[in-house]
């Protein structure tokens, strides 16, 4: 079964490129959001899934990408491509500046340090006059959902290809070794600091581009939507639900949860957010290796799998 996954994924990606040809406007808009969220989850997967470092602060890179594009296009009337590049540069600098001190921290210390990042950036950008403080920026309007759709799809494909490379490279082996036992990895020659910081930088690039695309599509940027802490909730949950440390798990997890969210949000948006929390609680208890592991078991799967996950970890 395993060898069919890659060809199947390519076929699906090619098929998805033709969706704008026949889908409705609302459908395309749903897919743009779903593709961008999947990119965030997939980017989070690099450090979180492979390296085992849970970041609750990746929304900061999304915000930097958003503002880089927003400031370039709204304030300086530069083209979109230049805006994206500025956003990426800002995010990479941010990842390096933030990553070097806090990636020295292990486990919960790192996670909590990232928890404060979004709030800190929100406060800074709300007071920054180049970003028009907390009023926000309005970008030039471009009504071309097909273009935004194809851009988002291309970004997700690129991000997934990167993760595919990570999963079978020397670099990825180093990250996994760090996840399993950082001290042992170090004595075996893995430069843990370098690997962790580059993983965060890699994640920041894709996250920032997603933010830039969303900014141009949405034509409006303000601190609250750029540095939105619920984005962290969503990307982490989608990745963990789908299968952290796998190539396609985060993508599938995102698509499934985006669809569920869309259906529920039409009724009550609070209920949809609540469901996300429940999903992660149940996923950690019953399928800690994610949807990918459940599906990968194929017919061998039975209720015993879920029971075993509990008996292995309960007190």
């Amino acid at each position, binding site marked *: 079964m395993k060898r069919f996954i890659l060809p199947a994924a390519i076929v699906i990606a090619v098929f998805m490129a033709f969706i704008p040809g026949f889908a409705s406007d609302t459908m395309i808009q749903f897919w743009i959001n779903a593709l961008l969220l999947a990119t965030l989850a997939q980017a989070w997967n690099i450090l979180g899934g492979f390296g*085992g470092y*849970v970041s*609750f602060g990746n929304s900061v890179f999304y915000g930097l990408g958003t503002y880089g594009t927003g400031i370039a296009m709204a304030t300086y009337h530069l083209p979109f491509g230049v805006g994206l590049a500025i956003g990426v540069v800002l995010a990479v600098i941010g990842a390096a500046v933030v990553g070097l*001190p*806090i990636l*020295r*921290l*292990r*486990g*919960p*210390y790192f*996670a*909590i*340090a990232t*928890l*404060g*990042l979004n*709030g*800190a950036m929100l*406060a*800074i950008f*709300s*007071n920054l006059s180049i970003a028009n403080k907390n009023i926000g920026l309005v970008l030039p309007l471009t009504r071309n959902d097909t273009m935004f759709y194809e851009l988002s799809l291309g970004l997700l494909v690129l991000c997934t290809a990167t993760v595919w490379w990570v999963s079978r490279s020397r670099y990825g082996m180093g990250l996994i070794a760090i996840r399993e036992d950082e001290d042992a990895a170090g004595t075996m020659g893995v430069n843990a600091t370098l690997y962790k910081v580059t993983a965060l930088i890699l994640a920041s690039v894709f996250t920032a581009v997603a933010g830039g695309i969303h900014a141009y599509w949405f034509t409006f940027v303000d601190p609250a939507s750029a540095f939105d*802490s619920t984005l962290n*909730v969503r990307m*982490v*949950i989608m990745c*963990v639900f789908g299968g952290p440390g796998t190539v396609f798990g985060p993508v599938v997890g995102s698509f499934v949860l985006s669809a569920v969210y869309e259906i529920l949000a039409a009724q*009550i948006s*609070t*209920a949809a*957010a*609540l469901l*996300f*929390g*429940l*999903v*992660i*609680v149940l996923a*950690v*208890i019953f399928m*800690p290796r994610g949807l990918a592991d459940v599906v990968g078991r194929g017919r061998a799967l039975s209720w015993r799998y879920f029971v075993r996950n*509990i008996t*292995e*970890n*309960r*007190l």
Partner: protein
Amino acid sequence: MVLAQILLNGVLLGGLYGLMALGMALVWGVLNIVNLSHGALIMLGGYVTYYLFTLAGIDPFVALPIAMVIMFCFGFALQWGVLNLIVRSKMLNTLLITFGLQVVLTFTAQLLFTADFRTINPTYAGNNFPVGGLTVSVVRLAAFLVAIALASILWFVLNRLPLGRAIRATAQNLTAARLYGVNPRVLYAVTFGIGTALAGAAGGLYGMISNLTPYIGASLTAKSFVIAIIGGLSNPFYVIFGGIFVGIAESLTALYIGPTYTDVISFGLLVVVLVVRPSRAVRAA
């Protein structure tokens, strides 16, 4: 004089901060769970106190012990029914599940209590009295004293009662704890219950001093974490001192840099503390 007043406010607020972190430090030190839903539990305790006051008409300081009992039961059930299932799993998974619980609690609160600001406002809320040229708010002083009292009680329980010895034995070694004849599942649930009750008390006091909304959890978790690290996990009074330190730092930030930066300062303190004392961070990981 302004500075003295600011420092006094910082100290009084810091006592409450210390109380917030007390439950987190206890659960972390004994159960090795970094509870990311701790702030949401504080929030929940605030609402419980609020409704005991507004609906049942109970004075908030009298309602506090009642709220603590309710929160203890809630925490006990949470550990027994959910967290005990993954306690032996990787630290990564306990982080993720408590993060999920935080989301669940936040949005359940939003459904039940709406997103409106709530403040616990007894008649004496605005009262204050002068001491040597400084103004002391009655509620803030009372909150500070309650925090000290609860830290003292926790210290007494941990160091003088058989239950405390069993809890401390668990922190050292799970198998040793079995020698005390206590079922570890119950002991874990009791410990988490105590941590939740302390969070509940902190929430009730927070509601008298500041505004309650369903969304305050995440930043209170981060704040509690910072204080738990500064104060350490071993002695309740050190945690209170940690809280006072952060309280003073926040008050000074608000005065000299600007009130919007108070959240940034706890984050900055966290990074500074961790970078200055990295050995500790590595050992506990």
